[in-house]
């Protein structure tokens, strides 16, 4: 392929990415708007806030000795004025539809604003800070769980596809019904056994209370707290993902070119690497990428079961506190991450699959 050919490929890729980008952006915008409507209960959250302001103002007036001597109607007047001022300050005087678009604009420009009730550990009300404070915990736990799960089941799947029908293969097949139960469910049992009965591992949380001061014991304590959640996910998902990887590879290992490679005398390791893994890389990478993205959202239930201070517990806190800015913030970041990943995957496909690189970018 000459320079001209490469240029043409780049141009085509650029055009394609542009169109894909626009499409992805439109879906993201619509999705975020839907979240804004739902998270504000279609404007109902406003009413809640307004009544709270009222309550707060009357309470303040009643407790303030300066107003004590005044007659009722004057107090009413002052209160009304104060309430209106307060409503205007928060911006609730405009209709919800109008504001929903403001929210949308803010969300899209990642101007995530201030939380209504939730406060970060450092005392900030900034949604950005609240989310950033929680994100590392989720990434630490779930991203590492997912990566471990993915690569261990990939290796095991490859191994089993070679030893199809063997005893260990049959064991994995037999264990795969375990996945019909979610990770958090096993979490309950593990807590029961290891925390409640045996008392050797903590019930939950991310670190001992009080946290150790030196970094090494601190890290060890965090690791200790990660054992049970990690175990629960491995019990739930290792067998099934190994099983599906193995089936996937088995399907590909009956391809004609794999058969021919065997006939040629290509050693098994090479066959696995060049003839099975390499052509199946695109779907594998897609799977990994999507898994990683969703792991940043945390696993709401598992985090709550293990009391893990990540995004998952934050989502629940935000829901339970009607804190729509936090919810919208989290979903917006998630939507953006997803959109970027989708586009990135398109580029990766072009890089790793010659059929797309040269044959023209397909839309499917």
């Amino acid at each position: 392929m000459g320079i001209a050919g490469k240029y043409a490929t780049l141009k085509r890729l650029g055009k394609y990415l542009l169109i894909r980008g626009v499409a992805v952006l439109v879906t993201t915008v619509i999705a975020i708007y839907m979240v804004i409507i739902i998270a504000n209960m279609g404007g109902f959250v406003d009413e809640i806030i307004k009544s709270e302001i009222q309550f707060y103002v009357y309470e303040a007036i009643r407790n303030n000795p300066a107003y004590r001597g005044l007659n009722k109607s004057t107090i009413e007047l002052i209160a009304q004025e104060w309430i209106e001022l307060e409503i205007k300050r928060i911006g609730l005087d405009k209709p919800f539809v109008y504001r929903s678009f403001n929210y949308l604009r803010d969300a899209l420009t990642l101007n995530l604003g201030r939380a209504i009730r939730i406060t970060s550990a450092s005392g900030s009300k900034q949604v950005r800070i609240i989310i950033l404070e929680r994100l590392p915990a989720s990434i630490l736990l779930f991203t590492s769980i997912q990566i471990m799960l993915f690569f261990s089941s990939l290796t095991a799947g490859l191994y089993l596809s070679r030893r199809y029908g063997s005893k260990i293969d049959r064991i994995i097949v037999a264990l795969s019904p375990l996945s019909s139960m979610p990770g958090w469910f096993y979490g309950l049992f593990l807590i029961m056994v290891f925390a409640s009965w045996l008392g050797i591992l903590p019930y939950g949380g991310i670190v001992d209370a009080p946290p150790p001061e030196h970094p090494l014991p601190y890290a060890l304590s965090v690791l200790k707290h990660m054992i049970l959640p990690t175990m629960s996910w491995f019990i739930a998902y290792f067998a099934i993902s190994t099983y599906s990887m193995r089936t996937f590879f088995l399907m590909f290992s009956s391809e004609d070119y794999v058969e021919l490679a065997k006939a040629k005398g290509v050693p098994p390791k090479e066959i696995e690497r060049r003839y099975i893994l390499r052509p199946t890389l695109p779907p594998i990478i897609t799977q990994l990428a999507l898994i990683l993205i969703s792991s940043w959202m945390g696993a709401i239930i598992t985090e709550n079961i293990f009391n893990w201070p990540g995004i998952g517990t934050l989502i629940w806190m935000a829901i339970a506190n009607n804190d729509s800015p936090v919810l919208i913030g989290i979903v917006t970041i998630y939507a953006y991450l997803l959109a970027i990943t989708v586009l990135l995957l398109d580029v990766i496909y072009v890089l790793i699959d010659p059929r797309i690189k040269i044959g023209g970018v397909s839309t499917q």
Partner: protein
Amino acid sequence: MVGEILSVRDLYLYYRVRAGLVKAVDGVSINLYNDESLAIIGESGSGKSSLARAFLRLLPKNVHRFEGSICINGEDVMRLSDEEFNSRVRWNKISMVPQASMNALNPVIKIGEQLAEPLIIHRNMSKSEAVDKAKEMLKFVGIPQEFTDRYPFELSGGMRQRVVIAMALITQPSIVILDEPTSALDVLTQANIMNLLKKIKTDRKISYIFITHDIALSSEISDKIAVMYAGQIVEYSYAEKFYREPQHPYSQLLLSSVPTLREERTVKFIPGEPPSLLNPPPGCRFHPRCPYAMDVCRREEPPIIHMERGSYVRCWLYAKG
């Protein structure tokens, strides 16, 4: 005659499926002298592809019985361990052009690399050396050398078929198995490929084992013919004789069912259905469809009747006494 290049004795290949035992290759014997080519003719489900794959020990995972002897240049390769077989037989002595060669190339590896792979594995060549050799080979099969840098999907079906043929030849094995090498190709492309195969045969002194269901095509490159029916070879004969005087009733009917373009003759068909390899009929497997079927055919399996120069037929009609 010069040396025997291939001698197969009582080869069996059974595999187990849920419904029972599939007797894909059931006591097959073949012999082939240097430079001779063999066509194995059979309808779908006759076990001819299983036989071809058995030569390269490409067995199904549920194999139940695999025994007999396969001597290549006098060495019984059935006795070799899997590792030895892999390093000494595959692509060294015997290589293959698989069926459906459209999908026989790895879609994400360049043609040159795939072509060079056998040299790197079996001849310990460096990659650049091997790719150079691959270029030569491409030229030999009539593809421009610069195609080494292309990917399979950039080639037409005919070109891909040439690449696969080049791959089979690159280590200069003495036997090449052609498993329906042209069945997916158009008439003109097929003729082209057959021309190429003939040219290779005369240039390189190679023995082909040509698996096909197309009787007309089988006459293109075969010195000997083996007719397979339900896992067995029912007739093993020389080409000159076979097309003029087929012995086995099945061969006769098969030949008369081929429409010809140039000569005028009536075509006939064989009534009935071919048997399944799961539970073939007792006695002669062809007896339910045979116009000459006798009592003994229904009861007993026919013996192998040897004819001149190692040809044979498996039929009671030729049994003496």
